[in-house]
């Protein structure tokens, strides 16, 4: 049986549309748009520059393996919000940097540059546990005014969410990513002063500040 020329092109068109629809059915896109609360605690006495590169601000994870559906996970906007909020509350002064190492303001004592090292996730079907899980690993870099590396440390974040009735896989995964990002913020906030090099930097700064405040008192006493 031979298709007429026009009829065959119609069949080809329908096949193409069906194939596209089938491919789209197996492709998932998750866009995370989180807003995060400001941390509560004592601010560290430092003027810090924060450089969030374009790769970081527009980070998107893409996975297309044989044993999984195709996934595109866009966490750039959410992690930009998170790092801006958390770092903005951690120090006495935080300056967002549009470029680095060019045009660095003179009063900046430390520059923090985060990078995403990896993102992983598992589905309930894969682990046979009724939860969606996400891991995100960040490489954190700290530089001084001259661009010398002061410290490098890693933040590992974990988030999970239980499967819920009538919730799509995309929504569940977005929720797990939000939990992971909150965890990243918590680890950044509570772990910063535990990095030995940064601990030393903070101790020096606090010593310098306490000496500065004690000098006028001493002068008055001698007078």
């Amino acid at each position: 049986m031979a298709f007429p020329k026009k009829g065959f092109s119609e069949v080809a068109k329908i096949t193409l549309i069906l194939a596209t629809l089938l491919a789209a059915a197996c492709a998932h896109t998750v866009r995370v748009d989180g807003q995060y609360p400001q941390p509560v605690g004592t601010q560290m006495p430092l003027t810090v520059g924060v450089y969030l590169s374009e790769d970081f601000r527009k980070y998107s994870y893409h996975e297309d393996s044989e044993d999984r559906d195709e996934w595109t996970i866009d966490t750039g906007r959410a992690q930009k919000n998170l790092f801006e909020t958390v770092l903005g509350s951690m120090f006495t002064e935080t300056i967002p940097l549009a470029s680095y190492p060019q045009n660095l303001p003179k009063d900046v004592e430390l520059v923090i540059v985060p990078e995403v090292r990896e993102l992983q996730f598992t589905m309930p079907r894969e682990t046979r546990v009724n939860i969606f899980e996400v891991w995100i690993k960040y490489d954190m870099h700290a530089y001084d005014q001259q661009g010398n590396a002061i410290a490098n440390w890693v933040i590992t974040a974990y988030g999970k969410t239980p499967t819920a009735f009538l919730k799509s896989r995309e929504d569940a995964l977005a929720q797990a990513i939000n939990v992971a990002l909150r965890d990243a913020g918590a680890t950044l906030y509570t772990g910063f002063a535990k990095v030995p090099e940064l601990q030393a930097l903070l101790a020096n700064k606090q010593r310098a500040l306490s000496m500065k405040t004690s000098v006028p008192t001493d002068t008055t006493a001698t007078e």
Partner: protein
Amino acid sequence: MVRALFVLTLVLLNGCTTVVIDEYRRSNGELAKGDSVVILGRRHSSDYETEPDLIECVGNKLNNPALGVKVIPEQQFVDAMYPWFEPRTAPLHLKSLDHLMAVPEVRERLEAFGVKYIVWIDGSTETTSSAGSIGCSIGTAGAGCFGFGTWDNESDYEASVWDFRDRELSGKLSADAKGTSYMPAIVIPIPLIARVQTNACKGMAAQLQQFLLPNQANNNS
């Protein structure tokens, strides 16, 4: 008439659930005017998670400002105290609470909330077994499903009540609920759902109310 029939149908369509509540009390609840209670879910375990909707359910049932119980919603509290009550940073023991109180800003905020009790709920509801099968077909004459399905749900929750001001464990209570749901299908599937988690929530909320307001409970009895 229609409403009564609807309610009756809903009652009949519920599967059976049994709930067992146990309690260990070290001291009676003392809620003064302006005091508040926070109910939080434990989320540090890797293989289960205390469901946020259960925490919300217990909080909603317990919240009764007229009786003197003011419950702070979980998300509002966790956001206001960020990052100290996240799954990996939340205090697991009362001693850890002392470390947290060493941060002046955290102490001030907790005092501003008027927190008297922190109730930690740990546990989950799981489907333990299922059996049966339902088949659906569609044809020129119409569509329909035939078969029978059944599954068991189990809830296992434990609540620890911390007296935030006195820094002591006031007591613990547990709620174990079990129920079997059925779904016969003769053309249309009819779900007879056992509301295991909801019943565990109701049981825990009632017990917590007795715990926090013992005088109120005595007056009622």
